[in-house]
């Protein structure tokens, strides 16, 4: 494979610019992987890797993956929050790569909440 250079970056920029003008970059779903010390130690990184692979494989542009810190429920990590536009966030507990794939395909893409893995509905409140 030829070495990647700054020129490649310029080509990517032009390509992305063309695509950006064709569609509005609306965020439909936000997926947050909780990545504090506790999350990372219990496998959140593998969950995040899986999520990024799934987003790329599905070729969707309206799903945004992000991370957050610990929210104090360390014993239930890895935790993942799925927040679809105009809906209450859903928190999933004890997530692993397989559950992540299922959550992505069923909940993020098809809108079906995966009840067996759900910890709670709503946002956490920080004191």
């Amino acid at each position, binding site marked *: 494979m030829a070495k990647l250079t700054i020129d490649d970056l310029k080509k990517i920029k032009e390509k*992305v610019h063309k695509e950006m003008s064709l569609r509005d970059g609306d965020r439909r779903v936000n997926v947050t992987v909780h990545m504090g010390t506790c999350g990372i130690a219990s496998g959140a990184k593998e969950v995040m890797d899986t999520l990024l692979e799934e987003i790329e494989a599905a070729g969707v542009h309206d799903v945004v993956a992000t*991370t957050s810190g610990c929210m104090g429920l360390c014993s239930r990590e890895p935790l993942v929050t799925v927040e679809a536009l105009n809906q209450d966030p859903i928190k999933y507990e004890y997530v692993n790569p397989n559950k992540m794939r299922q959550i992505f395909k069923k909940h993020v893409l098809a809108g079906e909440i995966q009840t067996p893995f759900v910890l709670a509905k709503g946002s956490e409140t920080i004191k």
Partner: protein
Amino acid sequence: MLTLADHILDITENSVRAGAKLIEISIDEDSRNDLLTIEIKDNGHGMSRDVLQKVLDPFYTTKTVRRVGLGLPLLKDAAERSGGTFLLESQENSGTTVKAIFGLRHLDRQPLGDIQNTIIILIISNSEVDFFYKHRHNDRRFGIDTREIRKEIEDIPINHPEIIKYIRGVIEEGLREIEPEA
């Protein structure tokens, strides 16, 4: 934590929470001296002398959602377990440097792990922060600086899938060239 990459992912969150705009992550593998050095340097708001003395206590944390703070103590322990040392420097309003030195070939040194995806996750989830990742293996060096990428892509966000794909490719090539032994 199973790998050193996990520690890096974890410690870097401290830098982000300290409001850092630039985080430099350097990994230095020195086979001649049998040393592996990991340094995470940020330009966040730093810590006072008082706080600096407390952060290695596992029961000290700035968070209110739980009563323990294990990130730094775990990294310190990982370094010391491999016959290495741990250094922490911080200056209020200018930044913090965390340096962990490991015995490169020590039996109890954790493997480096998946550093490529670690850097990618850091860039994706902290798109407003710049990262400079440097990796040296004896006389071979590799580095990637998001400030340089940002200059080229102008208004495209750094966490755009196409840009991330490019960054992933660059890191993959760089690592292939320096052949890390950690």
